[in-house]
């Protein structure tokens, strides 16, 4: 039932997907030869021919495109686009917070994939004004990950590979969801940043992963998507387990300060867990990997009761 995070019964989701595909199919017929998909702002994005020169304006979008089999077609990416390995060799167009519009234009892209909540709106508007084809991407949940991969596959004419990647991602998530559907809840504090200490609320993809694994985000009710906290409020909330990322894929230093509080339930039980940040903090198919890691950690916490 992990898929049911948006409150939909599990069996409705495939039906919805099928419906969306019928719709897409019709759009294609109506538009003649053009390739059309709907982006995350519900706009139609249409191409005369499959995308050959794509610019990806966030590290996450780059990963989604690679997952959709369209990695070869990426001609420009932003700083920190480091996965998969091949992404490191893609020429840069600035950082996601500030783009070099001249370089973007000079690359003559036929598709620019924008990160709605990460890229500066004024610069994105400029890209549209300059006549570039823009796809707005804002991935908020598991379904969005799968949809995005499928849509990118359609736009780049690598549909078969994209379908396989999306299906396999949803399968993994579904399996995990079924496995932990009846697991005892574990009260978890998830730390995404160290200074200041930051966590996520229930609208974040990470919270979806926590629920999938039968965990409960102790700060899920806070209003902001990524609230800043002090150490006191974490201690007061008495989490049974703490999970954190770090500055790299094996930097566990963010967990160390918590060992100084032996009375904290999480510390007392030894439930201080590391999750490689790039596997769970980027909304990409790799979340399936991160979810697997977090689910195992929570299971360990249950065994230690």
């Amino acid at each position, binding site marked *: 039932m992990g898929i049911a995070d948006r409150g939909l019964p599990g069996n409705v989701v495939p039906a919805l997907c099928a419906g969306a595909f019928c719709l897409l199919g019709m759009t294609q017929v109506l538009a003649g030869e053009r390739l059309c998909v709907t982006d995350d702002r519900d706009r139609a994005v249409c191409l005369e021919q499959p995308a050959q020169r794509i610019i990806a304006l966030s590290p996450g979008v780059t990963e989604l495109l690679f997952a959709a089999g369209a990695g070869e077609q990426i001609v420009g990416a932003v*700083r920190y686009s480091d996965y998969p390995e091949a992404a490191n060799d893609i020429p*840069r*167009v*600035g*950082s996601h*917070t*500030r*783009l*070099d*519009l*001249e*370089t973007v*234009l*000079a690359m*003559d892209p036929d598709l620019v994939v924008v990160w709605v*909540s*990460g890229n*500066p709106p*004024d*610069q994105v508007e*400029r890209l549209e004004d*300059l006549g570039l084809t823009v796809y707005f991407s804002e991935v908020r949940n598991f379904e969005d990950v799968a949809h995005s991969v499928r849509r990118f596959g359609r736009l780049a004419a690598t549909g078969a590979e994209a379908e396989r990647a999306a299906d396999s991602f949803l399968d993994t998530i579904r399996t995990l969801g079924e496995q932990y559907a009846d697991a005892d809840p574990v009260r978890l504090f998830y730390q995404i940043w160290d200074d200041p200490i*930051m966590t996520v609320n229930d609208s974040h993809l990470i919270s979806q992963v926590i629920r999938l694994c039968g965990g409960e985000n102790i700060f899920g009710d806070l209003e*902001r*998507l*990524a609230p*800043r906290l002090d150490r006191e409020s974490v201690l007061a909330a008495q989490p049974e387990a703490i999970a954190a990322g770090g500055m790299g894929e094996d930097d566990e230093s963010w967990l160390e300060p918590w060992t100084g509080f032996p009375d904290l339930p999480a510390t007392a039980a030894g439930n201080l867990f590391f999750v490689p940040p790039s596997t769970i903090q980027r909304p990409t198919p790799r979340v399936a990997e991160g979810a697997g890691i977090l689910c195992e950690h929570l299971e360990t916490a249950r065994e230690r009761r």
Partner: protein
Amino acid sequence: MSAAEPEARSAGAVPAAPGLVRIWPPLLVLALIGVGSMLLAVAWGSVPIPLSGLFAVLTGDAEPLHRTLVLELRLPRVLAAFGTGGLLAVAGALMQVLLRNPLADPYVLGLSGGAAVGALGAMLVGLGALAISGSAFVGALLSTVLVFGLAHGTGSWTPTRLLLTGVVVAAGWGALITFMLVISPTERLPGMLYWLMGDLSYARSPWPSLTVLLLACVLIAPLGRSLNALARGPLQAATLGVAVRPLEWGIFVAASLLTATAVITAGTIGFIGLVVPHMLRLVFGTDQRLILPASALAGGSLLVLADIGARTLIAPEQLPVGVITALLGVPTFLYLLYRSR
């Protein structure tokens, strides 16, 4: 700063009526520098365009890419940079006349802070571009009224008291800005920080800043003599027949409008208003009829040149232009100050 003080104080020591002959040659030179810097800025970007390509843009048969780069990306941004730099420098020059204090500057006196709080507040609430502009102007004006009104108070006011009020109000705005940054959504922080450091990639249309700058220069031009008198002190100015209070308020409102327009165009750039008028006084003396238009030209050129650096130094990464203005301006200013002793 103390070294510059006699300079500002001696403002009135300039011969009362230097002929037009003494004003035009420096302005002509500065105008040429301005045009030169703008040409350089249009020709130079993170994507190299060969000279032949640039000429092709002029004659109209250029590659579409070159046309777009030059006409749609670089030209509007360069013009906006010139307008913004000019606005800030003129605002600074006006404030320095008003307060007879070399430390005066829209940034120091809290005008930029007020405008920034207005604009950031409107952005946080999610208002449109027009409301952001209006809100910034209201913020700057509120700052003006606060500073000028409070410093006047009941008794007499001195430039020192005015300056102190301004510095305190600016600190208050600074705290409000920090507060707004802390409560704003994390994903919008980088954009807001760039804006606070001054960033011309926000500049979409150069016309507001250029229009206001031109209007200001035209309106201020006939006031040159009165400003020269005011720079000697309000008593002397009154003796010479200048209506001191209206002129002071006029200067403050004008400086608010100039600052707000600059802040809306490119965020808060803190350096130009303070340093450009000083540099010009060190080189050309203190006749306001020369200094004010010269500030417009030199401030504009400085920001245009700085923006070239912001766009290209670590391209494709982009720098906030405020960083470059300070890096360019500080050594130049220190050198001029040292030489003037």
